[in-house]
């Protein structure tokens, strides 16, 4: 397993990817709700003013404008803070985008706790639950900037809706030299037979470090990186759970409806397995430094190590 590469600000990588794709995909249009300087779609807008639409702080309207465009052959990327996109645009995402299976990319910026200083009003820790509940929706939580750019490229060409969660902050690069992300495929990062750890998003680098530490303590982790939460890649998950009989999920989301829920749903049906969750409890978080906030709300290398050990009976 390769150690983490240089840190990249994921939202910057998002803005750059849109700029790079503008020429290659003439159908690409970008919409933002008055946060383009934050989400980094502004660069696309400056370079492509005819294909950029800042609709003001009106998320519902933005989502449905994109839907109308998509029915006419365009490939819209809708961008704003994930919390506002998935809640203020929920009816539009369900009844217009998903019901009609329209090719719209929903780029949920400032995902998880990454808008850390702005506090609970801006922190998006239920977006995955919202998006997973929608028929036709593909849900991707990239672990690093590389996966985010790869999933964006794939999503724009998909004939259906895709939600991609984007972190506001610096994240270590993990998959620069790895095989490119495939939608709907689990990435096996480590082989082990004592405990399965399934992880998505920013905590992936933590899970990798935790697996190293656990190995030193004699616990072999089967480490699965699950960037696509829907549709879930069932087979490798069931195989791993059948082997280790213990599954820990790790995510930057509440304990309800995210990766833990998705994995539990599948395993309950195919391979009932003892599980535990590293996730935010059923509560609101607060303002603070991102790393410290993650740690306080239960997402850290230490928390992963402890829960994995408890599951493994050590």
């Amino acid at each position, binding site marked *: 397993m390769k150690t983490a590469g240089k840190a990249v600000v994921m939202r910057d990588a998002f803005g750059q990817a849109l700029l790079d794709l503008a020429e290659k995909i003439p159908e690409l*249009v970008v919409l933002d709700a008055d946060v383009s300087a934050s989400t980094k779609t502004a660069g696309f807008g400056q370079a492509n003013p*005819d*294909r950029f*639409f800042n*609709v*003001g702080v*009106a998320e*519902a*309207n*933005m*989502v*449905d*404008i*994109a*839907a*109308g*465009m*998509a*029915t*006419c*052959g*365009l490939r819209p990327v809708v961008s704003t803070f994930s919390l506002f996109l998935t809640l203020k645009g929920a*009816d*539009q995402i369900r*009844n*217009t985008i998903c*019901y*009609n*299976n329209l090719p719209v990319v929903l780029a949920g910026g400032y995902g998880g706790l990454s808008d850390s200083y702005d506090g609970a009003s801006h922190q998006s820790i239920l977006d995955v639950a919202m998006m997973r509940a929608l028929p036709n929706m593909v849900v991707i939580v990239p672990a690093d900037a590389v996966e985010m750019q790869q999933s964006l490229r794939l999503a724009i060409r998909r004939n259906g809706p895709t939600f991609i969660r984007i972190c506001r902050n610096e994240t270590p690069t993990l998959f620069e030299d790895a095989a490119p992300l495939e939608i709907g495929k689990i990435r096996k990062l480590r082989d082990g037979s004592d405990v399965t750890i399934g992880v998505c998003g920013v905590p992936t680098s933590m899970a990798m470090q935790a697996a190293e530490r656990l190995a030193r303590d004699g616990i072999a982790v089967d480490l699965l990186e699950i960037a696509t939460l829907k549709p879930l890649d069932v087979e490798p998950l069931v195989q791993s759970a059948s082997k280790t009989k213990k599954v820990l999920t790790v995510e930057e989301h509440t304990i309800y409806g995210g990766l833990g829920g998705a994995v539990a749903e599948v395993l309950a049906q195919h391979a009932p397995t003892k599980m535990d969750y590293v996730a935010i409890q059923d509560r609101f978080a607060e303002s603070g430094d991102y790393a410290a906030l993650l740690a306080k709300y239960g997402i850290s290398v230490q928390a992963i190590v402890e829960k994995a050990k408890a599951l493994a009976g050590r």
Partner: protein
Amino acid sequence: MKTAMATRGQPAQILAEKNRGKKAAMMQYLAQKFRADVFDLLHEKGTGHWGGASSVAELLTALYFDVMAVRPEEPRWPDRDRLVLSKGHASAILYTALANRGYFPVEELNTFRQLNSRLQGHPCMNETPGVDMSTGALGHGMSVALGMALAARIQRKKYWTYVILGEGCLDEGQTWEAMMAAAKFKPERLVALIDYNGFQLDGPSNEIMPLAPLFDKFHAFGWKVSPTEWNGHSIREILKSFDWVRQQKEWPVVVVYKTQKGRGVSFTQDTHKFHGAVIDDQSYAKGQPELMQTLAELEAAL
């Protein structure tokens, strides 16, 4: 109880008619025929929305039989004019117009709201040929139509985008978000059509959520507004309104039509009580002859 269609009121005849005055009379007849057919259908199925369907019978007839460039044999023709029926509960009249325009067999109307049908309770674009956007939850249509009109601009196409809004849609905040955005982007050939019948599900709009002064609101939101409230049940007036629309150089454009909810049946018109109520046997027995009487008069005028 199905009535046969008058020979001179047949869709094919109407589409071929070159004389504007004659065509208007034929469409006036056709709209009433559609209205009567919807009354039949909703009675037969025991479900559906009569009030709001009846109030847009003439407008939809004019759009599909005169105003819009469409190809029923190629429903997704990229250059077609678009229609978003934001008040999706009026689905029965939309389906009736589409079937008679040739998008699907008229006999299929009989499957309305039944299992395994392409004719869902509210319009579904991936089910029904000719439906440009799924609607039902109110307040979406204005934004969607704006997106379609902007797509035309980006792709240098000349199609028109029409969106039909009722009072319910005008209650929704999203409609006004879209109104603001449309005034900002000013896409060419975006036209909002207001079915202003004065009633919504729970009662008169003036009691539920007053919209007046509606014209002033549209003006204030930066739209080009029709100079008058046109009679939305007169095909001649509707055609006049589109003559006005075609003269416009500033976008977006909104046209207000004064209509009657539940139009055509004395005890269902100008009331909220038949928004979604079942047309039961008694209502049908009383209402159907009234619709037939008007239809006979319009046929005599052909």
